[in-house]
């Protein structure tokens, strides 16, 4: 009986265009956009920036920036050119800059920063500063040599930097945003079925027809919950498959990043498992919100804040490194999905963290399911 009901619910759900759209098409679009965005972030293609300089600035001075990727915008007023969006950043040299440098007088250079909210402006500014520092160091070295002074006098110690974490920027990037997309996709995919299977059945009065059959209410609620879980899981797995295929066939940098990660097959398997566990947990919450509602619209009003919960963990975890993740990050449902996936996608397989995540989600899911079952056994919640 349970399976008959489950298969009917699945058939009914997948005949709903909304379910199809939200379980397959939406993840496809979201993940495609995400994959290409990340690929562009990791791409070696260097961005060229527009640098505003005064008209008549000599070639010799401009050669300071020859190692950087600049297009020079010659103008009477560099500030105006930046304000008009013609240049990312600007620079003004002393009238007799070269002569002053050659005669050991102090020359001045004015760097005009562009829009502080623009990533391009800030990158251009950093490159201008780097080029000027390099030029300054070259002049200092030349002067020391002319004075027969050892250049090491000016560098009493050397700084060596070493990162102990794996330098896999691609996977780290995916580890930040894949959980967000996955959590949202599962919520968006499972929500229409959840609303339809309880509130929708009350609204259309099919619930009364169902209650008039000799089928036990616990069988009904189990089959409906399993349907919501299955649709959520399918959405999550489709999302993962889309990412995997796109990375494999449509990217280079991300493909290399994935290929250089150890145990990638095992990691994908664990991520799929966690996706299914999360889908069952979310199905319980969406089931309760749908039982509470009398209409589909009311159910959607209740489920929207639940899905918004998926936005918070990313705010908490963005500034937390994988080595800083603590016990509470893996105990709190939803947050632990983000924490575990963040860890897994940088190649760390910590079984203790995985078991805590799975266990905590299962316990929360069982408690919420029991609440839903108690509600479903009461006439007040099953009949409008």
């Amino acid at each position, binding site marked *: 009986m349970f399976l008959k009901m489950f298969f009917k619910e699945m058939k009914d759900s997948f005949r709903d265009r909304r379910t199809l759209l939200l379980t397959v098409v939406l993840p496809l679009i979201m993940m495609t956009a995400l994959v290409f965005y990340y690929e562009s972030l990791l791409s070696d293609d260097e961005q060229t920036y527009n640098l505003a300089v005064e008209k008549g600035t000599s070639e010799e001075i401009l050669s300071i920036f020859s190692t950087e990727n600049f297009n020079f915008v010659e103008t009477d007023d560099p500030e105006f050119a930046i304000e008009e969006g013609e240049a990312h950043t600007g620079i003004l040299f002393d009238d007799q800059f070269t002569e002053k440098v050659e005669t050991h007088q102090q020359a001045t250079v004015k760097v005009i920063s562009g829009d502080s909210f623009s990533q391009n402006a800030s990158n251009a500014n950093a490159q201008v500063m780097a080029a000027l520092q390099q030029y300054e160091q070259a002049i200092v070295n030349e002067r020391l040599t002319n004075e027969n002074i050892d250049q090491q006098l000016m560098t009493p110690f050397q700084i060596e930097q070493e990162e102990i974490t794996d330098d896999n920027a691609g996977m780290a990037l995916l580890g930040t945003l894949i959980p967000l997309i996955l959590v949202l996709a599962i919520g968006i995919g499972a929500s229409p079925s959840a609303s339809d299977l309880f509130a929708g059945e009350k609204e259309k009065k099919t619930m009364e027809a169902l209650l*008039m059959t000799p089928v036990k209410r616990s069988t009904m609620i189990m089959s409906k919950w399993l349907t919501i879980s299955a649709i959520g899981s399918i959405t999550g797995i489709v999302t993962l498959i889309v990412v995997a295929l796109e990375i494999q066939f449509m990217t280079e940098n991300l493909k290399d990043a994935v290929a250089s990660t150890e145990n990638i097959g095992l990691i994908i398997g664990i991520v799929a498992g966690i996706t299914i566990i999360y889908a069952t947990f979310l199905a319980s919450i969406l089931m309760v919100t749908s039982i509470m509602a009398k209409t589909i619209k009311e159910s959607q009003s209740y489920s929207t804040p639940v899905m918004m919960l998926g936005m918070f963990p990313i705010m908490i975890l963005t500034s937390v490194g994988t080595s800083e993740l603590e016990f509470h990050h893996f105990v709190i449902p939803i947050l632990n999905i983000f924490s575990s996936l963040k860890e897994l996608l940088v190649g760390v397989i910590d079984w203790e963290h995985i078991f805590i995540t799975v266990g905590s989600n299962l316990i929360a899911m069982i408690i919420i399911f029991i609440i839903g079952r108690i509600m479903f056994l009461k006439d007040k919640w099953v*009949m409008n």
Partner: protein
Amino acid sequence: MIEINEVTKRFQDKKKYVTALKHVSFTVEEGEVVGLLGENGAGKTTLLRAIATLLHPTDGTIKVAGYDTVKQPNDIKKKIGVLFGGETGLYDRLTARENLEYFASLYNLSKHETKVRIDELTKMFGMRDYLDRKVDGFSKGMRQKLAISRTLIHEPDIILFDEPTTGLDITAANVFRQLVHQLKQQGKTIIFSSHIMEEVQMLCDSVAMIHKGELIYHGNIEKLYEEENNEDLNYIFMSKLVRGGSDYVS
């Protein structure tokens, strides 16, 4: 067949209690067709829901085919078919056949029994042309026929209809009346609520009148005509409400 004994039903609406049924008692014999009459909000649907095991009486008992509605609901559900008015309770994305097959499976009918039953009902209601079409595009009449078929899929002995012809066009309403006639000939026990007095006069052996949750009359319809010295059920109903002090009539 159906024994309603001192049934009271109270609902809690926020902090107030609303009494929908007050000490209602009557019996329906096997093969009897009973018309349930009453104003809107009189308690007809509550009574039908209580008989159908969907609501538990606050006080009193209801026995259907010897089974208690509270203690043995599943035994009753196998023997009863219910159609609540206005709403057809069908799955729009499934075809008519899929709807019938699904409900047949919930009543544990075998594949063969289901096929035979669907053939019978399709013939009875002339649904052959749209049996394999999705319910989504059905007219109200087609939906009602399918909903009645779904109610009868497991051949129940007792059938409850709550305002079954509400919103139906004349043809569909006539099809329903013919059906009740057929079911009556098959010996089925039927209770249906209605606002249409002609329908009740035409189809019922007896009537039960409910006013503000109280049973104000139950008995044979012919006896009622004799007692009231009148054969206009509409007039009799209205005069009983006046005697009962209906707010609506006053």
